[in-house]
């Protein structure tokens, strides 16, 4: 320590960590790099700077920390650091029983939480080989599509907000608020619905919900058109998003991107068609696909998906069968040992669950594979070479929800 004062220090010296005001706020971690990628990333060439898009930031969708290596304004590399929202959901699911897992898994995708609730529910049904009544299937499809619309409306708002427009956010929230109020009339909750049960749904459709739904459906298509009109042809918006974050189909498959991101790159993979579940085999709908793979295509694709969802809701309402809404299952479920894999198409991609049960009332392993987790990896391929401002635009166009990324 005493002879350290006379020597010239450099941050490359692996034995000494010098604590100065500059280094407190620097993003270089204070331990030697543990992997090759870390070494390659934290080695700064001449003129490069590490910029920490920290966990508290108005634009990272949730608590995400991204360390950007920038050269002036151009990003050369990026390293997302996760874990700020990690709640240990999988471990908690193992501790409680299958019903508790529903409310544990709810906040994994808090924007459209019925999809994350579906995970333990559908996994348990597959393990039990349970036949869910038709009416429950149709109700589930209906509320899933409503959630999809509300999530996409929010996506439009966030994308515009990250690019600087203040009003499309509020337009997205108009749609989302109406849908969420509807679902509150149905389930009792606005956001984390806790509505799906193993074997069906919790409550039947009531008059309040149906009247609000009918009211909304009569205006929905026109409202969506009007609200997206502000951004569709907007010169500034188009120039900010077209050609940004281009994903080729090969790259998309290699990075295992799913959902609207994959379909915008040209690969027509949709879990609702590939592995039909619930009422989807009986419904007629198209899968919108675009081929450019840039942010603008992802935005337009989600607007198309909203229209498709409105069609699906229409069909669900017309073809809703009568019947029980929940299968008869005992209150305490003991599932025979087995393994099951289910997947649904959430607004972000393929939301998958791999469940193992060991015969007791607690799940042995409930692995939730969240689409935002896989989608977010692709920023490492898409962003370098663009400017810092585009980092936000590209991340916003992938629509990540940190609840799922950091289980």
């Amino acid at each position, binding site marked *: 320590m005493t002879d350290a004062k006379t020597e010239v220090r450099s941050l490359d010296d692996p034995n000494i960590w010098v*604590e100065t005001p500059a280094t407190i706020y620097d993003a270089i971690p204070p331990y030697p790099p543990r992997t090759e990628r*870390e070494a390659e990333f934290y080695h700064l060439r001449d003129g490069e700077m590490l910029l920490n898009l920290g966990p508290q930031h108005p634009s990272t969708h949730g608590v995400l920390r991204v360390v950007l290596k920038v050269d002036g304004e151009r990003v050369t590399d990026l390293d997302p650091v996760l874990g700020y929202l990690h709640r*240990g959901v999988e*471990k908690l699911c193992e501790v409680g029983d299958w019903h508790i897992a529903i409310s544990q898994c709810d906040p994994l995708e808090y924007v459209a939480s019925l999809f994350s609730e579906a995970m333990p529910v559908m996994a348990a049904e597959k393990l039990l080989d349970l036949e869910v009544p038709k009416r429950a299937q149709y109700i589930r499809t209906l509320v899933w599509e409503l959630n999809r619309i509300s999530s996409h409306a929010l996506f439009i708002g966030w994308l515009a907000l990250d690019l600087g427009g203040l009003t499309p956010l509020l337009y997205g929230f108009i749609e989302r608020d109406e849908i969420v109020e509807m679902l509150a009339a149905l389930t009792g909750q606005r956001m984390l619905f806790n509505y799906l049960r193993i074997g069906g749904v919790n409550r039947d459709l009531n008059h309040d919900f149906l009247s609000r739904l009918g009211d909304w459906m009569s205006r929905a298509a026109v409202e969506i058109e009007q609200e997206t009109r502000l951004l569709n042809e907007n010169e500034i918006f188009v120039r900010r998003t077209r050609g940004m974050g281009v994903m080729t189909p090969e790259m998309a498959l290699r990075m295992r991107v799913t959902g609207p991101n994959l379909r915008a790159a040209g690969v027509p993979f949709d879990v609702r068609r590939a592995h039909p579940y619930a009422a989807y085999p009986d419904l007629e709908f198209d899968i919108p696909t675009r081929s450019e793979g840039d942010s603008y295509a992802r935005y337009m694709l989600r607007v198309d998906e909203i229209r498709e969802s409105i069609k699906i809701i229409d069909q669900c309402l017309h073809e809703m069968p009568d019947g029980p809404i929940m299968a008869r299952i005992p209150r305490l479920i003991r599932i025979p040992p087995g393994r099951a894999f289910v997947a649904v198409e959430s607004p972000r991609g393929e939301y998958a669950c791999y469940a193992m049960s060991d015969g007791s009332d607690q799940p042995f392993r409930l692995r939730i594979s969240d689409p935002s987790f896989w989608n977010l990896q692709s920023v490492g391929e898409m962003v370098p070479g663009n400017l810092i401002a585009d980092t936000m635009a590209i991340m916003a166009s992938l629509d990540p929800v940190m609840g799922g990324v950091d289980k």
Partner: protein
Amino acid sequence: MSKLHDDEQFEFEILADLCGVDTGTEMWAVYHLWSPRTPDWLRVIVPGLKRDDPRVPSVTFIWKGAEWPEREAYDMFGIIFEGNRDLRRIYMPPDYTSFPLRKDFLLADDSARSSGEGFRHVEQMHQPAENMRQPVIRMAPQLGDNQISTLSQLPEESEAPPT
């Protein structure tokens, strides 16, 4: 695995899931693959990994998107994927010593099983690991010796500074 991916008969394009499982006696690595040919997923299980030193070859050379799930499996179970260029902890802090999703890591309020181990892991969280450099506190040259900054309040040997 690459055979499954490249073979035209199977054409398993999409890796649907990659996870680790701890069955109490041994560890598995489980992969789910999807192909446009078959109507269902294919589950590939790599069983028999030893609890002490589980090693599996990585699939990141086929699907670069498998990097983070392998990091997660390493973080939660300790399974080391050979060939993954970036195998570090993804959810837990970098100096965390244990692997949370293993069956011998018990939560503090897990009353069904004994709760001894859980507590110990929670307390260990604040000790830095051995490979962390100890920070050296030195006054920045422009402050001068008689000026106090907040740095001087920290003890000499302390934990790694937050990044």
